[in-house]
């Protein structure tokens, strides 16, 4: 056993070098290669160890191959029959044992991390418990201890363990925030999954659905927003504040109530099983998960514009989603613009 650890230690410098090399890959808020939290960090550690071992193996195979191809090419005048070697017991044992050792070197930390990852913090009093529900094609986040439900933006306090309980209302999805943790499937009731992660730093991280779930599978994105403890408490308080924020224009308010709130929930209304909650939608990072509300970047746009894009033809933004086209529901262009303006202005502290 000692030997395996020594072998592991010898690989360390190379592991470190590789780490530096790989760190150049991808966006900080998205890439697996730039982990931003302990769970992603532990996966990354295993990846570095395995890739180091594997590169060593590849180098050995490549160099033997290159050597035999060059050294043992048949020459023009070569006619004598080469010796017909049966095999070599020693050599064959050697290349049985060495891979076995390499496998053990990788298997031990793997098993360790597997069991560490099984620690889901669902009994941890300090942890924030979040029930994640996948829908075609949006994400619902219910904070069971606080009695609040939101969608698309998962707000978490830095440093705290977030204990997830994952399930789906329709088909299978997979909950994945690459820079914070590996993915976990959302199964229907009966096989509910639990896991947890934490984010030590403030920031916005990109989350994705990783299990084919229909036409807009690729668009089923969400954001994880890690904020300070105070900001989180403030957010919770404003989510819980009894809400009667409605459009100012009474006609529009009536339209909004009769056409939108049949599916969507707002403020203190109980969460709807078919459509995302709209509470505080004006402060979210994106509309529909993919239209980024950031006009300082070239791929973003002001939230008002994004809301208008979405409300004017939801199917063209996310093919196959369940939202009916507001125009088909009898809303005029002005009413749609009015609702977009109202929603854009509906922000939380």
């Amino acid at each position, binding site marked *: 056993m000692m030997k395996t650890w020594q072998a592991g230690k010898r690989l360390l410098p190379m592991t470190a070098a590789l780490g530096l090399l790989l760190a150049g890959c991808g966006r900080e808020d998205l890439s697996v290669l730039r982990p931003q939290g302990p769970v992603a960090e532990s996966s990354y550690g295993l990846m570095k160890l395995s890739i180091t071992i594997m590169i060593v193996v590849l180098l050995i195979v490549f160099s033997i191959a290159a050597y035999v191809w060059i050294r043992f090419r048949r020459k023009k005048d070569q006619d004598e029959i080469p010796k017909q*070697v049966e095999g070599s017991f020693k050599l064959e044992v050697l290349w049985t044992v060495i891979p076995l050792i390499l496998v053990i070197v990788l298997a031990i930390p793997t098993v360790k991390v597997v069991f560490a990852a099984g620690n889901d913090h669902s009994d941890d009093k300090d942890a924030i418990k979040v029930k994640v529900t996948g829908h075609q094609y949006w994400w619902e986040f219910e904070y069971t201890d606080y009695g609040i439900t939101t969608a698309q933006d998962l707000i978490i306090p830095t440093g705290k363990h977030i204990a997830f309980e994952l399930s789906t209302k329709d088909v299978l999805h997979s909950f994945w925030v690459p820079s914070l943790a590996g993915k976990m499937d959302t199964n229907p009731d009966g096989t509910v999954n639990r896991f947890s992660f934490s984010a030590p730093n403030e920031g916005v991280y990109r989350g994705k659905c990783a299990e*084919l779930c229909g036409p807009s599978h690729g668009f089923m994105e969400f954001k994880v927003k890690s904020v300070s403890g105070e900001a989180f408490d403030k957010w919770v308080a404003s989510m819980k504040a009894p809400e009667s924020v409605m459009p100012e224009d009474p006609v529009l308010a009536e339209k909004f109530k009769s056409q939108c709130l049949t599916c969507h929930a707002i403020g203190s209304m109980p969460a709807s099983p078919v459509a995302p909650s709209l509470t505080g939608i004006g402060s979210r990072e994106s509309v529909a998960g993919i239209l980024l509300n950031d006009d300082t970047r070239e791929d973003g746009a002001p939230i008002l514009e994004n809301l208008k894009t979405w409300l004017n033809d939801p199917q063209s933004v996310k093919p196959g989603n369940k939202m009916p086209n507001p125009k088909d529901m009898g809303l005029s262009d002005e009413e749609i613009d009015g609702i977009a303006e109202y929603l854009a202005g509906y922000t939380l502290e």
Partner: protein
Amino acid sequence: MDWITTVDHKKIAILYLWAGGLFFGIGGLEAILIRIQLIKPMNTFLDAQTFNELITMHGTTMIFLGVMPVIFALMNAVIPLQIGARDVAFPFLNSLGFWTFLFGGLLLNLSWVMGGAPDAGWTAYTPLSGKGYSASHGVDFYTIGLQIAGLGTLIGGINFLATIITMRAPGMSFMRMPMFAWATFITSAIILFAFPAVTVGLVLLTFDRILDANFFDVDGGGNPVLWQHIFWIFGHPEVYILILPAFGIISEVIPTFSRKRLFGYSSMVFATILIAFLGFMVWAHHMFTTGLGPVANALFSVSTMLIAVPTGIKIFNWLFTMWGGQVRFTTPNLFAAGFIPTFTMGGVTGVMLASAPADFQFHDTYFVVAHFHYVIVGGLVLGLFAGLHYWWPKMFGRMLSETLGKWTFWTFIIGFHLTFFVQHFLGLMGMQRRVFTYLPNQQFDTLNLVSTVGAFLMGVGMIIFLINVFLTSRRPADAPEDPWEDGRTLEWTIPSPPPEYNFKQTPLVRGLDAFWKEKMAGHKAMTPAEPIGPIHMPSATILPFLMSVGIFIAGLGFMFSRDEFSSSIMSFLFNNYIVTALGLLITFGSMLMRSLFDDHGWHIEPEELEEGEQR
């Protein structure tokens, strides 16, 4: 007509090759369309639904209808020759196996023109593949088409098992059998154990969809994770059904072109058996993120990693076969040489994927896409190319052009690495698989462009191969018996292409690499094990074709049994299961004919054999 009724294994091999080639072409076009769609972010070349149908059909077609038949083509063409037999054990069944495969494949591809292809991915995970979320007939085409095609595979596998067990030439003990025959034997054993699982799975899913059963429906007490288990208990061994024949081919090609016997033959056999055995114990590594819990994840992690050991044995044995030999880079050997490093790269990423906590990140991303394409294309397809170039003269009596062959190799392998190497990084940078497009500014753009360019280059390689085949077919069939000059096994002792009866006299095998052994002893031909006598041949028959047509019709009838048609006659025919019954009647009627009319076959008399010799 001759082709429809044939029961000759060599002709069936050619049928498998053309049919497999056709489906391979369709699957390849689907791949090209997928890569065009992904060439840039937010591309609108395809819509989301069509894209999902394309990825589903690409995967399904390539695995079941593209590479498997080409494997079967090579097995059919080579195995009876390699073991010194006159045909397979059950020539009638061999033909039946081909026709069920072909009609299953046709049924599946009919979905493109009959209202929607399957769209739930080649793994068809429930509930997405259930009627609630996939309302078109797409998935019905998948379940019923694959069921029919799967029949053919199972029949073929059993046939090869029986052939190899009972029909080896005198003196050919198991440990003197060529490596490709070993690979075929083990592959057939895996087919025997793995295909029933998918058969059951497909039946259950068909019942859920057509008869409203609840096997996978949670509301009815079913469990969608059950489908994943059934699918992967088949699906993982399937990977070895695909790759072991490639291992076999490489083990034939490398010794021939190194002029050396295979290094460590017995450890190769042992490794093959071990891979097959372990292949059945690792299915859950496809399901690490399903939430099986740490104990299952740990066990399946370790058992998966263990497969690296026998695979490693094989890689090093191949390298040491060349060591001290005289390596000639003919086209087949070029493909074999390309196979070793490429497949090794696919293998090591496999070990990386086996580490469950790391797999939480890899799973369902382009890293996985890269991995299995390295294994299946970089391993199997390169292996098949090696085998096709190697045995082409034996199958058709014509040598493929070496120049064009080398062009095929270089364009294909460069295109391949360009396409798939960068996908490892795409996956690690956060690109999940099966997405019909992606948002800009995620640093995915350049790598996707590179990948698409590579895919086109692979396409060019394929076209060069087709040109090569076409030009070769116009040349006279004048390949010598032993065209590579260093043939080691029995197939190189008979004319190219072989006569209908293969061996005039069954050869006597005196060791591993029987032909090479005779050559070294100064003989020009094998010592016969029997005097010249009449050879018993099976009769040609159309019954296998009719049986398959019947199943095909019954499948369509069953699938549309609940539909409402605009014409009342159609509704009447389908809704009362009349079409289904008609199809089954054809099939069972043919079976009855087969049982009632005893066909003793016919004989080739010694005089005819002599005549054939002179011609």
